[in-house]
């Protein structure tokens, strides 16, 4: 990672051109060729600094509902429960946290009913206590980009 790579990352985090030759446009901004932009991006993606390049959609605008859930999972059931939870395409984030509610995950689905259905399926399959379902009632801030040198959570 050199200074040009850093500028490139900053540039494509929020200023990705919506045009026919986006990489050529980025190259013009940075004073490098389209080929060099593509070559550098391939290397940066390879290194894992960039997870994905594309669109982030607002789930509500697509008609989806989302929520944050927490489960109390005893150690002996943890591995199996995580496997069950992660098997859902609807679960995008799942973390172990230092609390009695030790497994925290987000669920995004076409309806509230489907979310309730998924949670019921997980409880039954994992044999765990009722999962708490905490859909946001007010959004104060959703910042996708943190100030750039550096660097989530679901809703």
């Amino acid at each position, binding site marked *: 990672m050199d200074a040009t790579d850093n500028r490139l990352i900053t540039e494509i985090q929020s200023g990705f051109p919506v045009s026919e030759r986006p990489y050529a446009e980025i190259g013009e901004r940075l004073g490098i060729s389209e080929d060099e932009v593509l070559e550098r991006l391939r290397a940066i993606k390879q290194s894992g*600094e960039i*997870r994905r390049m594309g669109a982030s959609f607002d789930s509500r605008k697509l008609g989806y509902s989302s929520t944050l859930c927490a489960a109390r999972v005893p150690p002996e059931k943890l591995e199996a429960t995580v496997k069950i939870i992660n098997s859902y395409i609807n679960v995008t984030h799942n973390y172990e946290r230092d609390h009695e509610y030790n497994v925290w995950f987000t669920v995004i689905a076409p309806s509230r009913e489907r979310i309730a259905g998924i949670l019921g399926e997980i409880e039954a399959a994992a044999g765990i206590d009722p999962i708490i379902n905490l859909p946001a009632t007010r959004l104060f801030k959703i910042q996708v980009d943190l100030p750039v040198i550096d660097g989530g959570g679901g809703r």
Partner: protein
Amino acid sequence: MSRSFSKQEMELVRQLQADIPLSPEPFAEIAAAVGMTVEEVLGKVREWTADGTIRRFGAMVRHQKLGYKANAMSAWDVPDERAEAVGETLAAAAEVSHCYQRPRADGWPYNLFAMIHGASPEECHRVADRLAAVVGISDYRLLFSTREFKKVSMSYFME
């Protein structure tokens, strides 16, 4: 607000939420896959960006790799009538990336959530202490993630 999407629009969503091609004309490739012209694709991307359907278009970076070492989920038990004002104050902090009000639940008395980012767990604690003093709420706790089990972008219209 949500509206219905045509089959072609749903296919375009599926293409755009995947990794866009690292080739000179990525939108032309997407257009070919969806059966639209490149102008139509560019027009849709602009329209969806303007109306907020697309929240962001660009690269998603790995936060931990690029420097934020710690993040804490702070949870606050705030009297309901103060929740809005306190939520706005927490959200205004530069170290807070996400802030929501949520219902309380069995064994979970906290109704405000703020994700705090810092260089270390200690720094997250300092930020939370500072915010606690500002909002005058002492009943809060920080939950650090001890393991990441899953972190992916949502794939819509796949079921």
